Structure formats: C-alpha cells, structure tokens
C-alpha cells in the first residue's frame, strides 16, 4: 500500500511544520492506525485524542487537499504530492464499493470538529493552515470567536456552530448535519454534551405571525425520493420541514410578502445588516450594484417605495446575469456543434482518402455527448417594474377608447360593410349588362386559365424575400369576402368563380381597428375597397352617390353624415351621436402595385381619369402594414405604441415619426430576449426603455443603418424622410427620456401627474422638471 510511503513523507513534513507550533505533538511518523494525533486542549469536551476505529466513516471531499498546497514552498509541495496520491487511492476505494464491515478508521479532529475519510486527508487537514490557526487559538485558551457577542447566542459544541437566534439553532439541531454528528459521536462512544439536546419545539415558537404560508407547496422529487417544499412566492425550495418553517418566519419571505400583498406588514431589519451597509461604502463596497444602491438609501427606513425600486433593480440585475449565463451556454453549444461538424467533415475526407489508398479507414468519430442542459430560467417576473407598469397602465387606460366607443364604431363599421356589400352586388348587376362584360366572358370561355393554386405557388417562390408582405396578402385572402381572390398579385386575369364580384372585389378593414391600437382622440375605422379595375374619378363619384342613397334607404338608418374627399380618395361616414365615430372608406385596386409603372400606363391613367395613384398605393401599403402588425401583435407592443403615439402628439421632437415607423421600431424593441425556447416577453416598461435606448444610441444619426420596410419589395428606409435636424432633436429628446425612465420619472414622459408614491420622496423639484422636458422637446 502506498499509504506507508506517504505516511513517512507526511511525517517528515509535519515535523518540519511542528517546529513552528509549540505544544504540537506529532504522531504522524510513528503512527499506525491508532493514535494519529495526540493533542490535548483545554476544551471541556475533549477526551484523549485518538483516531477512532469504527465501522462508519465519513468521506470529506478530498479535493480540498489542493487548497492547502497553495502557500507552501517547493519541498513541501513535493512531499505533498505523495499525500495527494494516497488521497486519490482512498477515494477510489470508497467509490469502488464501500464495505461497512471492513476495519475503516474515522479520523476525527477534535479541534475543528471535522471527520476525514482517510489518513491522508486527515494529515492534510492537520497540516493545513485552517487547522493550525484553530489549534493556535485553542492553545491560547481563546474560547470563542471575538466577533461573537458575549451573551445571547447559542452554540452547538458538537458541531462548533453558533447562531444568534433560537430558531436558527433549533433548525440546526433538527438538521441532518447535526444528526450525523450525533450518530458519529454515539458510535465513537463519546459523550454528547447536554446543551445540544434538542429543546422542546414548543418553546421555540416565534412570536411573529406566519404569513404567506399558502405559497409553500409540497412536492415530491422523483430522483432523490424526497419530499421537498417549494415556496412559489420566493422561488426557493427546502429539503425538510424545519427549513420550511424557518423560511416562512424568515425575513426574506416576509419581505417578499410585504412587497406583494401586505404593505403594512412589519419586517424588522437584522442588526448585522445595518452594520454591513455602513461598511460597504465607497469603492470598497464591492457588493456590486447592490452595494451602491444600499449606500444611496441608507438613512431611509420606511420608504417602501424605494425598497421596491431597489428590489426591482436587483431583479433586473439577476435577470441580466441569467441572460449572460444563457448566452454563454448557447455559445458553448454552438462551439460543440461546429466542432462536431468539422470533425465529421474531416472523417468523410479521411475515409475517402483511405479508400483511394486502399488502407483501413480510421474509426468513426465517437458519438457526440449530449450537450449540457440550458441553465434554468427563473420566470417569476411579477415584481419587475411594478410601479412603472402601474404608471403605464394608468396612462394607457387614458389613451384607450371606452368600450361603448368601440362598440359604436363596430356598429358603424358593420353597417358600412353591409351597405358596401349591397352596392357591390348592384354594381355587378349593372356590369353584366355592359357589352364589355360579354366580350370578356366570351374570351375566358375560349381560353383555358391555369389553375389558381399553381399561380399562387409560383408567387410564393418569387416573393420569398418579401415574406411579411406575402403573409399580409395571404391574410387578406382569408379576410376577404371572395374565395379565390388574392389582393395583391393574382388578379390579371382573375379566375372568376360564380359568386365573384365583378366590380368590387372586396372590402377589408385596415388601420388601427384591426391593430387594436385605436386612440381615444381619434376613433376611426378604415375600410379599403378593392376594385377589379383601377377606380376612376367617375367611378368614385358614382360610388359615393350610391353609398349615400343606400345609407338613406337602410331601414335601421343611423343618423350618419357622409362626406367625400377626392384628393384623398376617401369617403367619410361620420356619426356624432351618441359618441363621435368615423369610418373612412378608401377606394383602391391591387392593379396599382402589380403593373409596371411606365409612361404608357401613366398616360392611360390620365386619359381614364384614374384616381390619384399615390393615395391608392398608400392604402395598399397600409393594408400590408396592418397584416404585418397583426402577425406580430403583443400586449407590450400595443401599449408602448400607444404611449409613443401620444408622445408624438405632445412633444414636437417626436412628431415627425410616422405611425408606421413607430410600429417598426417598437416591434423591434419588443422582440424577446434570451435563447431558451420560450423566452419571456418584455414587459411594457422594458420595451419603452429599449425604444429610448435605441434612439439614444444615435440610431438615427450619422451612418444610420436606417429601418428597412418589411412590406416593400425594394429596400426602403422608413426613416429616410427625416431631416438631420429632426433626427438630432429626436435623439436629444429620447436621450433625455431614457434617463428619466431610468431615474424613475416616467410620469414626466407620459405627461401624467406625479404618482403619490413618488411624492413621498420629495427630492425632485417638481414644478421645474416636467415643464423643462416639454419646452425642450
């Protein structure tokens, strides 16, 4: 056994070390299995110190040995290596199958209350600086840690553990660690000191009333076959009932409860924490961000608002660290994949080479090991940005139209749509009478048209790069009234089904209503009427007259007011009572976008007095944008968008931004973060901050990458129209807004009254600050 060799080596070493410590009686060199250390202390519980032959042994992690070698000089290190080998041997033996009946030794250090699995580890421990320090202390007769208070604390002599509260002590006494120690001592036949006998649990019941006990669930862990308790509020789990009880009464749990449910709950601050806070000032407070935050609020005890803010900051911080972890994992996985791929490529090449040369191919690459699981993600984000969320919610509810308003609009929309349907039928009837139709009908019966579906498939490939628009088109098809219709591309010549309309193809809702982002200030629905042919001015007027007539005819006639605007190609259907709602009808045709624009087409349009091309195209664009937006809709997106729309009305710097560019920007900022399969959504405050961050980073300034329009075929910079000055002002405003958001003054940006919680802080020059933002903007 290599044990002996090392033992002697260790012996010489300990001798060398012994000279430094008076009263240390080495036994290592002469030791066999018995009496490894004879070291007597003034400790009350000490018995002559021997190593105890016993049937049980506790293997301490042997990896610690390396720790001790750190500070020694080379010779000692060399000797240590020998010890290290033994340790490994010991460990292997343990792993290979531990037989309780074999004469195993327990190496127990009386001073440090530590059990070592093998002699080598034990020796390592004895020579370690930790032990030596303790030994020296014991030698001087220092009984306890000077840091501890003179009285009012509990000490478990057996485990050398002190605790300041009775509950903690009880928890320790009931814990498994302590239990093991007691078992060991029993086996060793050593006396168990009285002071550690578990006291009656009734005695230690704390005076604090329990709160939030209902959050603790009991779970059964199938892998460890143990019952675990999980506190869903604090997101932590416990192995035993004592720990659970302790947690429920603990400060963290109570604080959490206070924050969430009962603001009046009293949570006392431990004295030690205050001291710590005083300590961690300046740069020395390396507690990270927390240190800084604590510093700032020292001296403020009962501002729960501030506490919440701090907690939020902390949560943000932990979230970021989590995100980093995920990112690291992701990169790691990527690396593994790349390596595997390279290896595979190499193997294929190698095999080909071997085949050419006629030699045996190399062994195939080993099966890739399964990648490590991604780090667990904490999805409890309830607390985050709590008061900012409240503020945003308040503002948003102000901006949103009421339910009755929406209902009224919906009613008017329905009526208009019905009316349009009637008109459409009427126009069809008229059209069938015309010679033009008959001519055309004869033509289609003569020629065979390719299947519509084939047509579509072709387009799909063509339009691969413009997916968003494509999607929009598909969506439009579904929403449309006709079956085989495709708004954008497949119209010339359309495949005519029996029930197809011949003049007006369809009528689609576009704009804010399907986007769910109607503002209270402008309750308006937009309908796009798609004509088969390009609508002319004559047609527009005819249509308008028909509409007027139909509205008058309708039985349940609502008192609507109609107006037309030929330059805008729009018909307005207005209703003032009971609430002011409006429906805007646009005439357009998909032909505008399909055809190649050349002089011939334009000349023809002029000749036929076709409606203004530009406005017709903008209606088409609006449809695509609506569909695009609908496919990406989320709560955060809508809420933040409304806020920004409101902002652009109030602050001149923001007014140049079009709704569409805002939509694109907010959507970009609302995209989720993280690499897990279901990353959490950004909350509205986060999205808002990100929007401001984006602008603040100089996104609009020099070398601006621009913002590509996903709904156009050619690359179009949505923000291209902004002048340099506008960009500058916008950036400046956003930069200021960002800092306002960060520093808890969101209400200034939202243009609402300061919430009461903030007033408690009372440090902001309230009169000056908000107006300065408005003036400057």
């Amino acid at each position, binding site marked *: 056994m290599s044990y002996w060799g090392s033992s002697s080596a260790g012996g010489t070493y300990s001798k060398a070390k012994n000279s430094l410590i008076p009263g240390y009686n080495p036994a290592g060199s002469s030791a066999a299995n018995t009496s490894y250390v004879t070291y007597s202390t003034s400790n009350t519980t000490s018995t002559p110190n021997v190593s105890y032959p016993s049937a049980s042994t506790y293997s301490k992690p042997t990896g610690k040995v390396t720790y001790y070698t750190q500070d020694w000089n080379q010779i000692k290190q060399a000797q240590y290596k020998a010890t290290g080998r033994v340790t490994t041997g010991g460990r292997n033996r343990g792993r290979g199958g531990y037989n309780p009946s074999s004469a195993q030794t327990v190496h127990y250090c009386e001073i440090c209350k530590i059990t070592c699995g093998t002699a080598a580890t034990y020796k390592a421990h004895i020579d370690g600086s930790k032990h030596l320090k303790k030994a020296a202390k014991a030698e001087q007769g220092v009984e306890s840690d000077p840091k501890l208070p003179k009285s009012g604390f509990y000490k478990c002599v057996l485990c050398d553990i002190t605790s300041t509260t009775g509950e903690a002590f009880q928890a320790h006494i009931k814990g498994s660690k302590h239990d093991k120690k007691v078992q060991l001592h029993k086996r060793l036949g050593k006396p168990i000191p009285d002071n550690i006998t578990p006291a009656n649990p009734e005695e230690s019941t704390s005076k604090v009333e329990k709160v939030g006990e209902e959050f603790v669930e009991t779970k059964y862990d199938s892998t460890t076959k143990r019952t675990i308790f999980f506190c869903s509020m604090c997101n932590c789990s416990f192995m035993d009932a004592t720990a659970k009880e302790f947690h429920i009464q603990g400060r963290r749990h109570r604080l959490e409860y206070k924050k969430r449910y009962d603001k009046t709950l009293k949570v006392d601050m431990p004295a030690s924490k205050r001291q710590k806070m005083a300590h961690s000032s300046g740069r020395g407070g390396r*507690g990270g961000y927390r240190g*800084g935050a604590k510093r700032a609020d020292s001296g403020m005890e009962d501002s729960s608002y501030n506490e919440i803010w701090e907690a939020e900051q902390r949560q943000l911080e932990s979230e970021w660290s989590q995100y980093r972890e995920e990112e690291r994992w992701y990169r790691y996985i990527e690396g593994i994949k790349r390596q595997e791929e390279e290896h595979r490529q190499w193997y294929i090449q190698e095999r080909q080479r071997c085949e050419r040369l006629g030699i045996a191919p190399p062994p195939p690459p080993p099966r890739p090991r399964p990648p490590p699981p991604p780090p667990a993600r904490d999805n409890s984000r309830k607390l985050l940005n709590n008061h900012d969320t409240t503020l945003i919610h308040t503002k948003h509810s102000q901006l949103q139209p009421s339910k009755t308003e929406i209902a009224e609009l919906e009613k008017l929309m329905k009526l208009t749509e019905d009316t349009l349907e009637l008109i459409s039928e009427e126009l069809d009837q008229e059209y069938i009478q015309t010679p033009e139709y008959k001519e055309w009908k004869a033509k289609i019966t003569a020629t065979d048209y390719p299947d519509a579906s084939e047509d579509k498939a072709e387009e799909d490939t063509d339009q691969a790069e413009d997916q968003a628009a494509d999607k929009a088109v598909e969506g439009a098809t579904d929403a449309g009234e006709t079956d085989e219709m495709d708004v954008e591309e497949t119209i010339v010549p359309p495949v005519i089904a029996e029930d197809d309309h011949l003049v007006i193809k369809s009528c689609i809702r576009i704009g804010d209503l399907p986007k769910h982002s109607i503002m209270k200030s402008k309750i308006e629905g937009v309908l796009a009427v798609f004509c088969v042919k390009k609508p002319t001015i004559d047609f527009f007027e005819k249509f308008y007259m028909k509409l007027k007539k139909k509205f008058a005819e309708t039985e349940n006639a609502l008192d609507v007011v109609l107006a037309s605007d030929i330059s805008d190609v729009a018909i307005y259907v207005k209703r003032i009572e009971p609430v002011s709602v409006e429906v805007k009808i646009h005439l357009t045709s998909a032909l505008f976008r399909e055809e190649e624009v050349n002089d011939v087409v334009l000349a023809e349009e002029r000749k036929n007095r076709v409606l203004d091309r530009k406005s017709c195209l903008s209606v088409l664009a609006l449809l695509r944008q609506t569909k695009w937006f609908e496919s990406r809709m989320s709560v955060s997106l809508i809420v933040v968008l409304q806020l920004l729309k409101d902002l652009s009305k109030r602050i001149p710097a923001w007014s140049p931004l079009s709704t569409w560019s805002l939509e694109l920007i907010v959507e970009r900022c609302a995209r989720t973060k993280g690499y897990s399969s279901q990353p959490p959504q950004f909350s509205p405050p986060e999205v808002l901050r990100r929007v401001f961050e984006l602008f603040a980073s100089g996104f609009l*300034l*020099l070398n601006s990458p621009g913002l590509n329009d996903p709904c156009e075929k050619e690359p179009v910079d949505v923000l291209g129209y902004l002048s340099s000055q506008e960009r500058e002002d916008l950036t400046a405003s956003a*930069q200021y807004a960002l*800092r306002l958001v960060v520093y808890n003054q969101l209400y200034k940006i939202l243009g609402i009254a300061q919430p009461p919680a903030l007033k408690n802080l009372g*440090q*902001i020059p309230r009169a000056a600050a908000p107006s300065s933002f408005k003036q400057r903007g």
Partner: protein
Amino acid sequence: MTSIVDTLVVSPVPEVDIEEMRVVGSFKKGTILAGHKTADIVLIIKHLPTLEDITNIQNLMKEKMNAQQPEKERKKATTKSHESGFSYTFNGSTLNVFVTTLPNNTKETIDPEKHLKLENLKNSLAAIRHARWFEENAYQSSIRILVRILKDFKKRIPFFKNVNPWTIDLLAHHAAVANTNGNTLSVPQVFRRCLQLLAAGILLPGSASISDPCEPGFVKAHSFMSYEHQDELACGAQTLLRALSHGGYKEILAMKGARKITFESAVMFDGIIVTPSKLAYEKPAEPAEPMETNGS
C-alpha cells in the same frame, strides 16, 4: 521614472516582511497620459500593514533613494503619506505606493486606529487584478488609445469627472472587442461605439452593463459610481455623441484651432445642422437623483 520603480523593486525594505511588489495602474497598463508622471505600485506585506509600517517604509525608501541621487538634488524629493500608502515625488514624477497585505489576512480583525482601512487594502489588491487582466485581455492598441481619450475626457469634461479608471478600462475593452464577430474595431469605430454605448445607458441603473471580470459573480462595471455620477456620464456622452455625428470630431477631441466644446449653449456644427438641444442636458442631471432622501 522607470528607474525609480526598479530601484524600489531591487531594494526591499528589511524591517517589513514584504511578500511581493507589483506595478499597477496606468503605468503598467501602458495607458499613461502625457504629463501625468505617476507610477503606481502595490506592496504586499505579510501581515496587516499598520500606519507605523508605512512610515517606516516611507522613510527607508527616501533614505535609499537619496543615497542614489547626487547630494544637491536630494532636497527635491518629497514623500507624503495617504490613506492607503504613500507617494514619493522626485523631479516632477511621482511614485505612488499602495501598501496592502495577503488576501487571507484581510479577514482578520482590523483596528481602525492602528491599521490601514480594509477598504483601501482591498482596493489595492483589486488594482493588481485589474492590471493583470488588462495586460492579458486589452493588448490591442485601439483599446489603449480609447482609454487615453476617455482619461483625457475625465480631465477636461466635467461630466466625465467622476468616472472610475477601472470602469474606463472595462468600457474601452467592451466597446472594442464585444461584438458578434469578435474582431477588434478600428479606433474611430471604437470611439463612436463607446459613446453610443454610454449614450444608450450602458452605465445606467438597471442596464445590462459590463460585468467585472475581476470580481466573483456578476458585479457591474459601474457599481462604484453613484446614481448622480452615472447620470452625468450618460448625459455628457449623449451630447458628445450628437456633436460627433454632426462632424464635431475636432471640438470633442479639443484639437488645436477647434472651438472649445461647451455644454451650456447650443452649438452649430457642419454649417447646416444646428444642435440646439445641448443646453437642456444640464438640467436632467439635477432632477435625476431620485435616491437622495434629504429633500423638502
């Protein structure tokens, strides 16, 4: 100046048990500014350094250094002790000596009247880690150039006054290296990116920030700065970024013949573009201290 350091390294002080001596700071990192003739070294001694120790080392060093100088120049050398060590000035150049101890010793009880403050000891130890990290990770010249530019800002521009040098190092490294390709960017790119990062609030509360590689866990690079200073920094950088994107390179870098950049009033850049919103950036710094509690 190098010679001073070398002398000190080769002539250890016998009375005090010196474990190690390391050069740190901008001198070591190679980011020293012109005219800033200061070298920092950290002296690790084996026990907790007392105030007495510092005086001893200080005197001894003065003695030894004087011995190497010609008689008439000796009077020029002065020493001055400070919170975490002492400084030795000779001929306009300064040697800053920070005295600290082994990391393990910092756990021992510290007598505030006898020993140096724990905070200072820890800072000195951190300085060693920082110097090492910088040497290993930030060898690219563009990082060093950017660090110098930012240090110059720190001297010239009031908004940058309170930036921690270590934060500057981290920021410069982040701006230059932390991109998707892992390439180091060129100096103009790095400079612009650095301002962009600051303007977008990388060093504001609640941001992703840069994690400190020399501390265990997730410690943010700006955790040493107060909220007010964080805001000042972001505000200054935002103004600079806009000035920069309108062609204000010369003004920002304070080149010869360029206008002095002001943060008080609007400035016209490029003839066409006006930047009128500069003035307003004075104001945000003032309400942006929501954490201060002793208000009305």
